[in-house]
């Protein structure tokens, strides 16, 4: 027990830095993954066939391949496709690596969010669309004011699970040298020659983060149960 506390105290700066990176990566992934997930869901339900086709292939491909492969594909693939993210250091954080890690995770979570959002929207009775359109509401307003709020009720629990998955999955970007929590555990193991302590500490930190997210989401869900 003492040894755990010693490691935690001794390397607290490293651990906090790692947690910060994990939080930053997760936050950006959740935000943009949600935005693109909604857009992808709209494409998947679009009347325009190429949109539907693209969304289908995209979702199938991403869900059918390991996230680790996707991370490497983005990391090595982008420069090969001529997309150079300029090497940029902010303090001791390598921004270009961070960006390609976030990008890979966003690409990944977009596919899962797409399915969650689509299922939620389609679970809303079609009569709701009819009722709204028949009043003269525009298709956009029908979606945003009538369908989406109702879909949210079905979407929120699954979305919460996905957010937690993102936080855990984000540990995989340590493979491209992003100094997140997982990477920090490796670092500490290397300098302290203790394999267990940093891993357990990091596990606890991950757990605290995901529990906080769960708590917040449960509160929001309760709030939405007014009708």
């Amino acid at each position, binding site marked *: 027990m003492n040894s755990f506390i010693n490691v935690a105290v001794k390397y607290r700066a490293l651990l906090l830095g790692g947690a910060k990176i994990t939080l930053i990566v997760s936050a950006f992934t959740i935000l943009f993954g949600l935005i693109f997930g909604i857009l992808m869901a709209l494409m998947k339900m679009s009347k325009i066939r190429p949109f539907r086709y693209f969304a289908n292939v995209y979702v199938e491909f991403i869900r059918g391949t390991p996230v680790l492969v996707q991370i490497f594909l983005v990391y090595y693939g982008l420069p090969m496709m001529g997309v150079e993210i300029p090497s940029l250091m902010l303090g001791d954080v390598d921004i270009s690596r961070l960006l390609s890690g976030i990008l890979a995770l966003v690409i990944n979570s977009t596919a899962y969010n797409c399915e969650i959002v689509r299922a939620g929207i389609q679970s809303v009775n079609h009569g*709701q669309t009819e009722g709204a*359109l*028949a009043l003269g509401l*525009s298709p956009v307003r029908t979606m945003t*004011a009538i369908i989406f*709020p*109702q879909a949210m009720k079905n979407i929120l629990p699954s979305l919460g699970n996905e957010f937690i998955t993102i936080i855990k999955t984000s540990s995989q970007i340590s493979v491209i040298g992003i100094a997140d929590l997982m990477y920090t555990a490796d670092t500490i193991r290397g300098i302290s020659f203790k394999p267990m302590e940093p891993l357990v500490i990091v596990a606890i930190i991950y757990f605290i983060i995901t529990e906080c997210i769960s708590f917040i989401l449960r509160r929001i869900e309760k709030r939405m149960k007014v*009708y």
Partner: protein
Amino acid sequence: MAETEVILTIRNLTKNYNTLSVLKKIDLDVRKGEVIAIIGPSGSGKSTFLRCINAMEQVSGGSIEFHGTQIVKQKNLQQIRAEIGMVFQHFNLFPHMTVLKNITYAPMKIRKTPREEAEKSAMELLRKVGLEDKSGVYPDTLSGGQQQRVAIARALAMKPEILLFDEPTSALDPEMVGEVLNVMKKLATTGMTMLVVTHEMGFAREVADKVAFMDEGRIMEYGSPKQVFEETENERVKAFLRKML
């Protein structure tokens, strides 16, 4: 009733779903204040016909003229739908909005009616359908009959010129049919122009000015309730009525 002006002129209206021909050259004139009951067997195209009138369905051919403008060519479908209201079999109230908000939402967003005014007229409408005490509740807490009356109030709040009803009482328990039909009867006496798809032959006979019998995508018989219910020579109409009465 004196002949009033024709506000809706339908000519040669056709509608196909791929190869399935659902509406086959329908003609109909609707005069202001008229109540037209549309009856006929299942699958004859009654719902499709109504849905074409308020542009919920794209027509395949022919024309629908509303106050001289072609609905078919009209770009602004929202405007048409605001003028031609619709009441559905399954009410389609918005469950995440209170009864009051269900009624005020569209007028406030589309007609830009100030909230106070919208709520005042919503309360008036609720009084007319006998539900003034339900303004603050969510639709799920209401019975089917009450929900349908709210749906009628919601459609009326847009002050439409024509109100379409697609089997408004078919999803209701028998004991609730009466309360909805009564609201519709009262509405008919106020001069509202109404097209009502219904299986309630009593309503068609007593309240409608005209009855249209639809079969296989055509209006096979059209006339006063007396003409259609009592004087028809058409065997299909007779067979249908025998089954219904």
